[in-house]
């Protein structure tokens, strides 16, 4: 009973303190907003902040590409190992038949069949190795995307630094170098990009190239 009385008597004071803090924060936020507007850095900060969802989607792209590459490589490894095992079995069986360990030696025709089978499986295994090599392209594609995210982070940092040193808002815009965006992370809804090689070829053909 005594504790409840104490708590009841403390609440109004705590509430009053909290209200004063919120009022003070509100006033400071308003002051900050007005200062940012006067300095002219709001558009830059807004632009930098708007880049954050873009950075998120780019990092998601990196995760997806990396996972897809890992999947492709593991699939190719599984298939190549199976082909390799089959080649080993064929070669072992052939060797055992030739040295008389198992059944009768193979006829010349059987020998040709087995060697052709080995050759075919070796070619298929080689194709799987090429698939593994091609799957490494994720390194290039994700590297470009990561570089773009780093650029976005740098732009945000620059905006905040400008705010801190209160740079004058009138700044001559430097001539922007040509923007290279790297891989298209999400082509949905975009008409300004070619989404595959067929579209690249069609575009060039339509222009006479």
């Amino acid at each position: 009973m005594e504790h409840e009385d104490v708590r009841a008597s403390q609440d109004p004071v705590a509430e009053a303190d909290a209200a004063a803090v919120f009022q003070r924060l509100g006033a400071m936020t308003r002051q900050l907003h007005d200062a940012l507007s006067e300095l002219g850095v709001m558009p830059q900060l807004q632009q930098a902040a708007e880049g954050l969802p873009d950075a998120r989607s780019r990092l998601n792209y990196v995760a997806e590409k990396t996972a897809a590459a890992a999947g492709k490589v593991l699939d190719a490894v599984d298939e190549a190992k199976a082909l390799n095992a089959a080649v080993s079995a064929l070669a072992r069986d052939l060797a055992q038949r030739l040295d008389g360990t198992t059944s009768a030696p193979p006829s010349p025709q059987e020998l040709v069949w087995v060697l052709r089978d080995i050759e075919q499986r070796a070619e298929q295994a080689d194709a799987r190795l090429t698939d593994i090599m091609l799957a490494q392209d994720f390194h290039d594609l994700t590297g470009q995307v990561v570089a773009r995210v780093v650029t976005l982070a740098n732009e945000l940092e620059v905006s905040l630094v400008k705010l801190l040193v209160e740079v004058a808002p009138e700044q001559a815009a430097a001539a922007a170098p040509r923007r290279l965006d790297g891989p298209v992370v999400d082509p949905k809804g975009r008409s300004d990009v070619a989404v595959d090689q067929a579209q690249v070829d069609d575009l060039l053909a339509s222009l006479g190239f």
Partner: protein
Amino acid sequence: MTTLGELRFLVVDDFATMRRIVRGLLKDMGCVRVEEAEDGVAALQTLRSQSFDFVVSDINMPNMNGFDLLKSIRADPGLKHLPVLMVTAEARKEDIVLAAQNGASGYIVKPFTKATLEEKVLKIVQKMPPRA
């Protein structure tokens, strides 16, 4: 017709992994004479000091990007004849058109397949004059 084994290729890309991939695919096609450069500046130095028959170039590179390399090659009397195949992640239509207008011999967007690279290289090689 010129055979692929006779030609000397220069692969230009700032990512070593991609240079290895293109080199490996060219080798599968029978192109055994392949050199590498990591950006446009290094590529130009190499092209001006040694004889090459074919350039495969990325666009997005530091120091000198693929567009500037292409323009430099086309502006150089000793190099302007070289076929230049762009292999790049830049898929904006204006970039594709710009490359074509500046004299690119072909344009491949990443990721690409072995069949696409083979098709584009052979198409360009078929148009090359026979070697003396």
